[in-house]
């Protein structure tokens, strides 16, 4: 069996592969270290992306707060030396 492409590994992770194909992939993964490692890497990448997604919500909130507050809209930056 050829190596499994990334899209199919993603579908496999989600359980979106037809039953017979799923069995073949599972068998392949038991024998092929390369594909098993790629699957593990995809799983880790997904976890990381979910964390990033949650942090992005915080970042978006901060961006909205900063924009609404107008902290940076008060004109040009001055060194404050002339104050």
């Amino acid at each position, binding site marked *: 069996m050829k190596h499994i492409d990334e899209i199919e590994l993603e579908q496999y992770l*989600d359980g979106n592969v037809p039953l017979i194909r799923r069995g073949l992939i599972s068998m392949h993964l038991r024998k092929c270290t390369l594909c098993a490692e790629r699957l593990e890497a995809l799983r880790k990448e997904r976890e990381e992306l979910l964390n*990033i*997604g949650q942090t992005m919500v915080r970042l978006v909130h*901060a961006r909205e707060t900063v924009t609404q507050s107008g*902290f940076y809209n008060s004109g040009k*930056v001055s*060194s404050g030396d002339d104050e």
Partner: protein
Amino acid sequence: MGFVTIPSMLADMKSGDDSAWAYFTRYYGPLIWLRGNDYHLTPSEQEELSQDVLVAFFKAQDHFEYKPELGRFRDYLRTVIKHCIFQILRRRQKLSSQTELEEGIAFDENEEARREQAEEEEWQAHVYSLALEELGRELKPRKLQAFRMCRLENKDPKEVAKFQKVSLATVYNDCNEVMNSLREKIKELSEA
């Protein structure tokens, strides 16, 4: 304004380019705010912090030269922000010296470790946001939407396919295309 590398942003800031300052405040302002929030600054102190950091950059621009081999921009920015926060806290607490305050703040090691962890995650999310924004100029909105929903919001690809009125295979192809482009973009941004 599209993606700007850190060296060119700093060079443009140095030459007094307003759009570079606007870029800086747009992309780094939220990170500054989050750091201030971590130290429980009040809204007026947050305002002070945002201005203090800008002023620090403004003052440093004549003698500051970005040399990636000497250190990352994010570390420099972190140092500037922390310095400004300590000054604000010092003013607030009326402490006599910076050293005492720094020791006081760093005393809670767990809290400090948590802050650093949050800072790391926020920087990573910041880089991904930049990359996705940049990809928004190159890829179809549908593809990015599928990626956001499936990978960042953990939605079921079947539901996304239904929502977008496309096949499940299309959702997987779109997510894969965005992910591959994103990996490239992240690499570019990390090297920029």
